[in-house]
């Protein structure tokens, strides 16, 4: 059990390297990071700085070579792949840069996907889907297919899918990278709302300094280490 004063997310001495062309290229050589519950962190940095690797490890998609990685009470560094997939399904929502909606499913069916992993009745699933689509301002578009939606609307469906199972943590991978400024601001307002009003912990990887302004703090990653931290005014 974590105590109230313990950080929600704790990375200690994380090491990670990738084999490229027979040579091991280190990404992290002892990364430390703590994030309290309810925080909204933007992670910035140049290409190759390790942002994606960090996100993949936090999502349980990838495992560190060494060090500890705990989220809540779960030690992801000690869990097998199937256990991490199950953990992901119940504790985390992911917002993708390119929305990653399944084109042959309607908006409601896309949002319903994470709920299929839970023992819910059809009616319970439908009520939850309607609630979150209403929350992201897409009420009435349940039966619309992604191809008929704008980028901003698709990303709002993506956010609805990420929060429909009420996870404590949202990982956002360049959530506004494919949007115009207006749509990007709408999505970022949505994320701020989720953080402030629903107390979701959000970690957002972004290249956009304006997007980072919506976060409570911004971490700059370079060559596998955090070199700067800025807190929102």
């Amino acid at each position, binding site marked *: 059990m974590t105590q109230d004063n313990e950080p929600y997310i704790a990375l200690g001495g994380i090491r990670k390297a990738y084999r490229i062309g027979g040579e091991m290229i280190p990404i992290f050589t002892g990364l430390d990071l703590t994030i309290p519950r309810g925080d909204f962190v933007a992670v910035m940095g140049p290409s190759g700085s390790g942002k994606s690797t960090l996100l993949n490890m936090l*999502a349980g998609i990838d495992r560190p070579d060494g060090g500890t990685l705990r989220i809540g009470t779960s030690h992801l560094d000690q869990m097998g792949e*199937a256990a991490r997939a199950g953990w992901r399904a119940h504790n985390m929502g992911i917002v993708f840069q*390119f929305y*990653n*909606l399944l084109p042959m499913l309607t908006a409601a069916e896309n949002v319903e*996907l994470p709920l299929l992993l*839970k023992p819910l009745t059809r009616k319970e699933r439908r009520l939850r889907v309607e609630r979150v689509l209403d929350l992201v301002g897409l009420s009435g578009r349940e039966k619309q297919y992604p191809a008929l939606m704008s980028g901003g609307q698709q990303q709002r469906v993506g956010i609805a899918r990420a929060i429909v199972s009420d996870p404590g943590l949202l990982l956002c991978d360049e959530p506004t990278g*494919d949007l115009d400024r207006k749509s990007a601001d709408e999505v970022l307002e949505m994320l701020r709302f989720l953080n402030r009003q629903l107390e979701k912990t959000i970690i957002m990887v972004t290249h956009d300094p304006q997007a980072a302004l919506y976060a409570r703090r911004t971490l700059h990653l370079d060559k596998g280490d955090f070199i700067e931290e800025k807190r929102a005014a």
Partner: protein
Amino acid sequence: MPVFLSTHSRQALVMIRTNLSSLPRRRAISASMALSVALVVCVLAGFLSMAKGFETALASAGSPSVAVVLGGGTNQEVGSDIPAAVIRTLDAMTGDLGVIRDTGGKLLSSREIVVPVDMRQVTDGASRTLALRGMDLAGPSIREGVAVSAGRIFSPGAREIVVGDRLADEFGLGLGDVVRLGAVDWTVAGHFSAHGSAFESELWADLDAVRSAFDRQGQVQSLKLRLAGPASLTLLRDALATIRQAPLAAVSEADLYAAQSGRTASLIRLFGWPLALLMAVGAAAGALNTMMSSVSDRTVEIATVRALGFSRLSAFLGTWIEAIVLAAAGVAVGLIASWLIFNGWQASTIGANNARMAFQLAVTPDVLLTSGLLGLAIGILGGALPAIAATRLPLTAALRTRG
């Protein structure tokens, strides 16, 4: 989706549905896989229906209640010879021989010889070798399922023939037509039907007329006897064993034709199966390619749902079921095409007595089942590897790729 389904089942159903819904994106390659399966099914169904049709033609020709006595140590009519003295001895036997007797107490039997004759076909003018069977007047009535369909039976001693319906159609032999067989002319007195059996590939005539026309005086190759029942063959064999003039063998007509059909049907299958299996290997490679393309096409979708927490099993089932559905579509097309093309198709081969034997290809339920199962096996095996590949997709593909 039903409430009672487990989360695993729901995941699998969603994956299967998304895969099948995305099929139009891969229309051409999916159709090519289904068609290659259909082709394999057609080839195998063609060969099997040929073997089945051949067996059916011969099996329906033979009755277990008709005994065929052969002499000269052979088990075929060709090469068999029964001396006249043997027949006289058998006719003179009293007591129960297991053979039905007529009202006068004579054994219900027919002495027969088979002579190969050449005849020109109406359609292409090509010459074909047919079997002209000389028989006693009781010959047609001894056989089961034989009926005169037009005209009448041949007259004793006359150079008249009755022709099987199948041959009459094929060679354009109408009632009253005169055909030259050997050195003499014969008049078509009638047509007979025998439920499409091998009998319909024969010409029947009076025994003495055939013997005189082909210089076979006194010859008898086989003796057909109408048994009281299938079990009576033993009694007949016991009686024949007491005749010392010549070695004689009695077999049921059903066994005689089954032995003849078995060899040829096996030969047809011997060619059919390797060809179909070879094509099946090619089709399985095609299925593998199609499904690999499917997995590649859906990389982001598969990785996305796996990133959401869906199991490897659901990814496997989605791809695997897609392959099986495509194969099943190919099987359906192949079976329908086989039925339409092959069922009832007239074919012929060299049958017993070195004469031509016509038969109909028969696309029976077991032919459909065997061909269909081979087609499904292509999908099951060809889809398995890509399905495994789908479970091993790197999930990172979902995070930075345009969906």
